[in-house]
Every structure is written in C-alpha cells, then in structure tokens.
C-alpha cells in the first residue's frame, strides 16, 4: 500500500508540473493581457500602460515570469489578483463555500434520486417506469443548461414569484431558510442533468451485477428478494460508483460555469470565467492548479476507497 501511494504521488507531482507549465504558456501566449481592463476605461495613457507593465513585471520574458511564479507558488504565495489586489488563495477560499454549498446539495440530491431511479430501472428492466426514466434522462441530458436556467427563473421567479431570481441570499439578510430558498432554483437546474447521468450509471452497474452467478446462487438458497437487493446487488453495484464519485470531486469544487452565471451564484465557476476574460493571470493559474490538485486527489481517493471497499483490489496492490 505504501509503495502504491508513493508511486501515485510521484506521478501526481509530475502531472502537476506539466499542467502548470502548459497552463502558464497558453494563458500568457493568448492575446491581450490583464491591463486591458484598465485601458478600456480610457483614462490611461500609453506611458501609464508601459509603467504598469513594468511594475507588474509583465514586460519580462515568459520563462522568467514562469520561474518566479513557480518559486512563489512552492512557498505558498500564489500571487495577488490584478483585479482587486487580494491574494489568490484568499479569493479561492472566498468562492469555494458558495460552490460547495451548491454542488454538494445538487450532487447529493442527484445521487439519491438518480441512484434510486437507476436501481428500480435495472430491477424492473423494460417496464413502463424504466422506459419513462430512460426517455426522461435523454431529454434532461439534451436540454441546454443555459436555457433551462433562464426558463426556471422566468417561470418560478418572474411569473410565479416563488423563488428568488438569483444570488446566494437576500442581500443584507441571509438566514438559513433564506439560503435554502435561494438554493432551490440553481439546484433544480444542476440536479436535472446530473440525476439523469447518475441514473444511467446506476442502472447499467446494477444490470451487470444482477446477472452475476452469486445473485442466482443467493436466490436459489432462498434469500428474500429485498435482502438480495440490499445485501448483494446494490453493494456490489456501488463499487464502480465510487470511482465516478471520486472523479466528481473536482467538479464539486470547480463549480458550474453556466448555472453560476445565470443565477448570479458567487462560486468558483464564475470566478474562473471572470478571471479568464480579464486575463487575471495569477487567479487563473491558481484555479488551474487547485483544480488539477483536486483531480489528482479525487482519483487517488477513489483508488483508496476502492481498495478499502474491495478486498480483491487490495490484494492486487500489494
């Protein structure tokens, strides 16, 4: 297990280094720069622009800028944002709560609902329920999030007035119930698509399992059907789901670009979008490295959990 972990860690470090180099190069080679936002305001002269370029060190060769960035990154200084001068780590920390709140809620909801639908669909394969669920999943997967978000706002906020038209809380207030109220809209939108996805995963995973020999054996031994389902089928069907959940961790923290924009949700997705369009190099790099870290940790965790849940893997890893 120790050697397995060490190997994985080494792999991860090399990957992180590659991600940082490629990300840095692409970001800086893309046309434009972080000062454009100030130039567009029209109050800066060319000599002001040249002065700011020099002050921010943007006029130096790219490798020099990269090495400086890496050096600082390694000692925990992720730089300051060009937009608001605040440390990148503080900015990321300030956005992650909103994203976690939204993504955890919607993911838990969709795993629970999608999982249940998938199990029932697999057990009652080709039943009316299964057909409706399959068609429903296809429709849900094809609806553009952007459009669906606007439709939810239009119907539930503008027309019916049941839900707020966005934001994480009522400005100046923000009790627990108020926050839940604000969560409903974006959760519906996010959960719709992911419920469909989870139900499909669960259904196929269950179908694999219930055709296995040990299920037939259990049935022939007279184990009650419900017990077969809970003790034998679902537990085994959940194994591949662990991997998928692990790979889903970065998405939990990466946020949802479209939904966060439509619902004015101050999360990581929108931060990334804003930072890219402003060419806020330190923030973009910070988010990139953070996400890469999360992907690596997520897959590592999935492997570990898998090993814990399944003795066969543990044996192979030894």
């Amino acid at each position, binding site marked *: 297990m120790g050697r397995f972990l060490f190997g994985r860690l080494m792999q991860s470090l090399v990957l992180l280094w590659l991600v940082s180099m490629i990300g840095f190069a692409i970001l800086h080679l*893309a*046309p*434009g*720069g972080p*000062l*454009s*936002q*100030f*130039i*567009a*305001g*029209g*109050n*800066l*002269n*060319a*000599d*002001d*622009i*040249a*002065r*700011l370029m020099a*002050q*921010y060190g943007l006029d130096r060769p790219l490798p020099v800028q990269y090495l400086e960035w890496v050096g600082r990154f390694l000692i925990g200084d992720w730089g*300051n944002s060009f*937009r*608001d*001068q*605040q*440390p990148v780590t*503080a*900015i990321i920390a*300030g*956005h992650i709560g*909103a994203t976690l709140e939204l993504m955890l809620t919607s993911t838990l909801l969709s795993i629970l609902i999608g999982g249940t639908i998938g199990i029932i669909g697999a057990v009652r394969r080709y039943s009316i329920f299964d057909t409706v669920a399959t068609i429903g999943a296809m429709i849900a997967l094809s609806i553009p999030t952007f459009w669906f978000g*606007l439709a939810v*706002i239009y119907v539930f*906020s*503008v027309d019916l*007035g049941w839900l*707020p*038209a*966005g*934001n*994480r809380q*009522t*400005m*100046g207030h923000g009790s627990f119930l108020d926050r839940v109220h604000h969560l409903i809209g974006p959760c519906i939108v996010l959960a719709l698509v992911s419920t469909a996805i989870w139900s499909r995963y669960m259904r196929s995973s269950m179908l694999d399992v219930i055709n296995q020999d040990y299920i037939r054996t259990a049935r022939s031994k007279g184990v009650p059907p419900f017990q077969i389902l809970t003790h034998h089928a679902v537990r085994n069907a959940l194994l591949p789901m662990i991997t998928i959940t692990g790979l889903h961790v970065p998405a939990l923290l990466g946020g949802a670009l479209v939904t966060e*924009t*439509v*619902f*004015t949700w*101050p*999360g990581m997705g*929108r*931060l990334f979008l*804003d930072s890219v*369009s*402003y*060419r806020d190099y330190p923030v973009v790099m910070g988010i990139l490295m953070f996400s890469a870290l999360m992907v690596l940790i997520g897959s590592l965790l999935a492997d570990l959990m898998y090993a814990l849940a399944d003795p066969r893997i543990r044996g192979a890893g030894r």
Partner: protein
Amino acid sequence: MKQDDPMQIQEPLLMLSRRGLIMGGAALMAAGTLGLPRGAAAQSAPAGQAIIGFSQEVTVLHPLMSHNEVDQGVFWNLYSTLWAAGPDGTLVPVLAKALPTVENGGLSADGMTWRIELRDDVKWHDGTPLTAADIKFTIELVQNPEFRAQGRNGYTQITDIAVEGDHVITWKLKEAFAPLISVLGWMFVVPSHILSKVADPNDPAFAAAPVGTGPYVFAERQTGNYVSLKANPDYFGTPAYLDTLIFKYIPDLNAMYTQFKTGEIDYIGLQGIPANFYDEAKSLPDRAIYEAPRGAIENLTLNLSHPALSDKAVREALYMAIDKTAIIDLVYYGVHKPAATFLSSAHWAYNPDLAPHEYDLKKAAAHLDSAGWVIGADGIRVKDGVRLSFSNSTTTGNQLRAETQQLLADDFKKIGVEMTINNMVAAVLWADFWKNSEFDSLMTGTVYTIAADPDVTHRFGSAAIPLEVGSGSNVSRYKNPALDALLLQGRTEFDHDKRKAIYFQVQAMIRADLPFLPLFDTIQLEGTVKGLDGYAYNMNTLCNTWNAASWKKTI
C-alpha cells in the same frame, strides 16, 4: 426622456421633480451630499438599505490604484475629495473650505502657486483627524514611481508641496495646468497615518480594509458577490440617510434586469438596462427609469496614417454617409442621442453651434468625385493607385456594434467605399492593436476627457501619439499645430468662461478635421424602485452612486 414617453403623461409630477432635481437642483444636491449643510431640517438616524446592482465587479478599494468605473462608485461613499463636480459641472468644496481662486488667494495670478485651506472637523473612519499631511501624502503617493497609480496626468506638474500647520497645504506647478482642478476633483484622499507606515506602496492590505473620511464606512466584502458599507456616524457633512449600501455584482445584464424587475435590487446601475428592454422597463409598475448620459461618445476612431483615411475629403464624405438616426433608432431602440463632438451635449463646455451633420449619400459621392476618387472596376473608388477600402474593428460579442458596422458598411458601399470588418476580443483590441495604432478604424465608446475636464491634449495633441512617443492616447495619429496651440492656451487659462470659449474653438477645429467620426452620445438606462429617492445622475463622475449618501427610502 423622449416626448412620447408614457411616464411623462401618467406621472408629470415625478418627471418634473426628477428634471428639477437633475438640472436646477443640481448644486443643492451636490452641496447636500458633499458635506455642506442641506438645511435646518433635523435628520433622524440612518435607516434602511439600498441594494445597488452593477454588472461589473467592484475590484480595488484603494482609490489611487488602477480601478474601474464601479470602484469609483464606491469611492465616492467611502472617501472624500478636496472638491467635487455636481451634475452641471459646478465644483463644490468638500474637504477644502473653498475652491482656490485668484480672488481668495488660493491661486496666484499666474496659476502657478496653490494654497488650500482644509476643514478642521474631518475625521478618518478610525477616529484620527484629517490633516494637510494626508493631502500631501496622497499626492506624493500618486507621484511615487513604485506605486501602481491609475494615472498621473496633472500630478506630475505638482512640486514643492508644503504643509502650514494642520489645515493648510500649498504647492507649486512646474507649468500652468488648469485641468488640475478637475483632476483633483477625483483625488480621493487616503490616510497618511496608516499608509505611510507600510513599506510597500502596493501592499494590498489597505484595499482589503479601507479607511476613508466619506459618509459611509467599509463593512464587508465577499469577492465575486458584494461589498457593503455602513453609515458613518461621525461624518463631517450631512450624514447619510440610509444605514447600509450593498454593491451587488451581477455579471449578466439580463440577469441584472430580471433582478431589478423582481425587486432583488433597488437600483440598476452600470451597465444599465439592455436597450431592448427599454419599452418594457418603462411600463414596469413602481419603477423609475432614467436616461443617464455617460460622457462616452460612440465613434469611429480613424487612423490618419491610413493611405485613404489620411485624405480629409474621404473623412468628410464618410461622415456624410453616416445615418446616425437610423443607427440609433434601428439598432439602439432610440435610446442614445446623436453626437456632434467629443463632448456630451450635457457637458458644460459643449459647443452647440458646430457645423451640423447631414446624412446625404449623393453629396458624399459628389464630394469624393471632386476629390479625385474615381470608381474602379469592382465598384470601389481608387485614387493614385490607392483603393478606398479600410477595415473596422470593435470588440467581439457586442451584437449592437456588429449591426451598426453592417449599416455603415452598406451605406459606405453606396458611395464606392469598402469597409471590411475585423473584430477581436477586448483583451486583444485594448492592447498593442489600439496602443500602436495597428487598426484602420475602430468603433468604440470613448470618454475623451480626464476627470470630466474638456482638455483633450492627450487625445488629439501632436505630442500624444503613443506609437511615436510612447505616451498619450492620440491613437488616430492626428496632428494639427493650430490645435496644439489652442489646447496649450486652454491648459494654462484658469478663467472658467475664457476656457469655455477656447474649447468651443477646439471643437470647431476638430469638427473641421474629423480625426474621428462621432456617432452618438451614450445614454445608460438606469432605474430605481419606487420609494428610493435622491438618485441623480452625474456625468462628471464615472458612476451614478456618487451621491448615495443623499439617497433615502420613503416607503
């Protein structure tokens, strides 16, 4: 408001009061906000909140660092300036006891020596009294070459700053520079007692916990979400009516308008209501909609080093071929007003007597004929081997500008001119492409003035071409020695009326030379909910929350 505006019929009183507020009552308004007594009426403790919607995020709370328009909208409430301009351009003293003039001894007769007396009852939000040392520190910080200042225009002229006692400051100018008084009208004073202790002038700590002297104190900030301010109980001027201001960031314009409609925000500010919702917005119950001039002139910026555009006859013909009314009505839902020069018609130095613009394709074609541009085999004019063809660039994703480009290209084609379209993302356009005059022509909304002063040396002066001298914003590469002389006169003249006459001439000269083709005076559609009173737009600021301390809730 337009004449057929239904609100004018339904609510004549509301309209009247709003007009009166903005035009006639401007000085009074400014006085109230900016620290002068508003009257004897007793004022109760601040109460309630206003949620201000912006489609740009408030970024930097250090008022001297590079910042955007909405940041200034916060600065006006958090900090104070020596004086400030009301909606009609009249300067009103804030931290200064009076505006410096030759009569009151604030200015020497040649305008080279300044002496400013400060109020003695101003306290920083942490309780420390404001002194002349703070003003000195602020000016010197902007001058500090290490500091990432927004701009130094005017500040570089100041020298020999001296403090007399606690409340008098004096300085000399290297050369007379009349626009300085406007520039200082945007100089938000920062606390010397806090910032002088920090070794690195760019240390971000102050921006995270700003301390000012304004009517509001900093309360809380959630990046990507909002900034909130609380009323300052020790404000030296008339205290704020509202207890809390929340500057909410809503990145999507449609989402922002929806939140204005559903009442999640009380005021919809920068970038305003999308023009396509204008009619619907006017019919919303319990909402007041305003046509606020931004001071930005939408225009075609021409590169005068382009072989065809360098010909004045071509520029004149192009101008005649622009149907401003059609652009405004067909593309912009009739929101904007035709522009005639680099100043908004609401600006105090606007010249109303410029040669009128006339849309006439026949005249335009005849003008090109007589200038020797003959139609070639492909229908495009040629002269001395130069084809009358140029490209136009603007930022991608701006649908309305793209439509305007189409209208223009169609009309230009009718007079034998080819205009191709070469749009690019903002981060590319506003980089070398703009600075090094790599474009043929640009379609942009430009604020030509600095701190609303009519001086445009940096935009049209021969010595302000960035490609040639590395400084300035004269990206058209326009050169006119007569204009240079006139601009110098305007910079060194301190008398308001004489300056006005000079800038009338400047506008006439630019109208004749056409280094850019003005399209329209940009109007921003803003709105407030019923019961939020006191709003007044002011094109002499970058953001109309400049007087939010005068806002109050009546419902």
